[in-house]
């Protein structure tokens, strides 16, 4: 595929631009929407990796559920009136440098490993739902069941916290 490289660059650019915009935007609502854009770009990356099942789960979980929850919270809290809580310029500068150093460290660490490419991602079939399903329900059956209990606990917890007369 000749396009896939260009697609990779376009998607990466969108993702990083939107991720930066999440931090720059003044209104929380804009931050949420830029984050949604980042998630869509990452979904595109999953499709490039031929992980279609993950791509669709990603869209359902992140774009469909988590971001809607965020939007709801922004609406409920009425944050736009409050606006931004500015930090001191020194703190901003220091944290930006810290982030940059972290980025370089991460890349240096990964570079020092010899990462062997064993397969062509555009051809392999492991991301298809048939293969993933078999592995999920054979090797990872117990974690799968446990995650359902985690969900139940989270649901009960969220309802408990959301109730007004909790005390």
């Amino acid at each position: 595929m000749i396009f896939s490289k260009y697609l990779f660059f376009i998607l990466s650019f969108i993702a990083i631009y939107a991720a930066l915009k999440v931090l720059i935007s003044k209104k929380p609502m804009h931050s949420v929407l830029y984050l949604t854009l980042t998630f869509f770009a990452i979904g595109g990356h999953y499709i490039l990796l031929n992980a279609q099942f993950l791509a669709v789960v990603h869209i359902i979980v992140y774009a469909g559920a988590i971001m809607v929850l965020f939007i709801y919270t922004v609406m409920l809290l009425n944050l736009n009136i409050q606006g931004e809580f500015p930090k001191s310029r020194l703190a901003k500068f220091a944290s930006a440098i810290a982030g940059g150093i972290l980025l370089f460290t991460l890349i240096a660490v990964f570079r020092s490993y010899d990462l062997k490419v064993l397969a062509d991602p555009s051809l392999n079939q492991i991301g298809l739902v048939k293969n993933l399903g078999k592995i999920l329900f054979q090797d990872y059956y117990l974690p799968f069941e446990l995650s359902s209990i985690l969900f139940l606990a989270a649901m009960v917890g969220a309802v408990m916290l959301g109730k007004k007369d909790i005390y």
Partner: protein
Amino acid sequence: MGFNIYDFTGMTHNMHVSFMEHMSPLMTTIVEWTIIGVCYLLFIALFGLFLVYAERKVCAMFQQRMGPMRVGYWGLLQTIADFIKLLMKELITPKGVDKFLYNLAPFIIMIATFMAMAVLPFAKGLQTLDFDIGVFYVTAVSSIGVIGILIAGWSSNNKYSLIGAMRSGAQILSYELSVSLSLVTMIILAGSMQLSVIVEGQRDAWFIFKGHVPALIAFVIFLIAGTAETNRGPFDLAEAESELTAGFHTEYSGIKFAFFFLAEYINMFIVAAMAVTVFLGGWMPLHFGSLESFNHVMDFIPPLVWFFLKVGGVIFLIMWFKWTFPRLRVDQILTLEWKYLLPINLVNILLMSLVVLTKFHL
């Protein structure tokens, strides 16, 4: 180029081959995408207009009126006239709105609708994308529309819009569960999420007959939840006219309002088409096990006609809901979903698994 009304695989393949002969692969891809896009646009515009007309006529029928009669024969041109009126209207942007988001919201909803259309199989070989996760893809894409609705409500700077958007967001999020769980029930029976395989598996008997009791329960749940997900029928409290003027699109006018309006009707079509594909055999003709001659007569009707007949039937059913049931309250809607439909659905999945395991189906 052979034109076969029963199987479009050959036609699309021939088109692709003849494009490849004359153009480079890149040009071929671009030309094919353009053709597909234009086809979908035309289909959405024309079918949306038709659905609006049909809705008004059905409504009139239930209320013992005539409906639109003046423009054209039996009022056939009424929706076109309305559409021209909407195009000519001034685009008003109210004071204090978040301009960018306000203008973006209608497009997000339209995009979500478009994307969901891509996997619907209209006839054999007449399907744009044939994912191996087709059913899953439709549920994923239809959840994007919620973001558009919430943005529209929030950016309008209007309390009616905000309340309407929050109501419809909560409603869509909760009913999506029922839609996907009832589809999961049928996936267990079909053994695949690929829509073409699902349709192919219904050659002998439609899944609603094949899976008898659990399939019937899933179908009823899917219809209820699908109606709720499109904000229609008795579940249209997001735009309850008497309390919220028009819900999340109160502040929109002209062509932007038309986008919301069109998306709503096309979403209804998508719900109906999914119901038809998964439960009622898609474009497969009606077959009864041993009636050979009857089956042959049914085979003679082209698949496109079958598909649109079934979709029309389901759409009529959905419209029937809307004009006969009174609107529900917010708490009633959420109670219906979380306390009734969801438990029934979970038990139903268990039932369907038992049916499939014991090979109790047809």
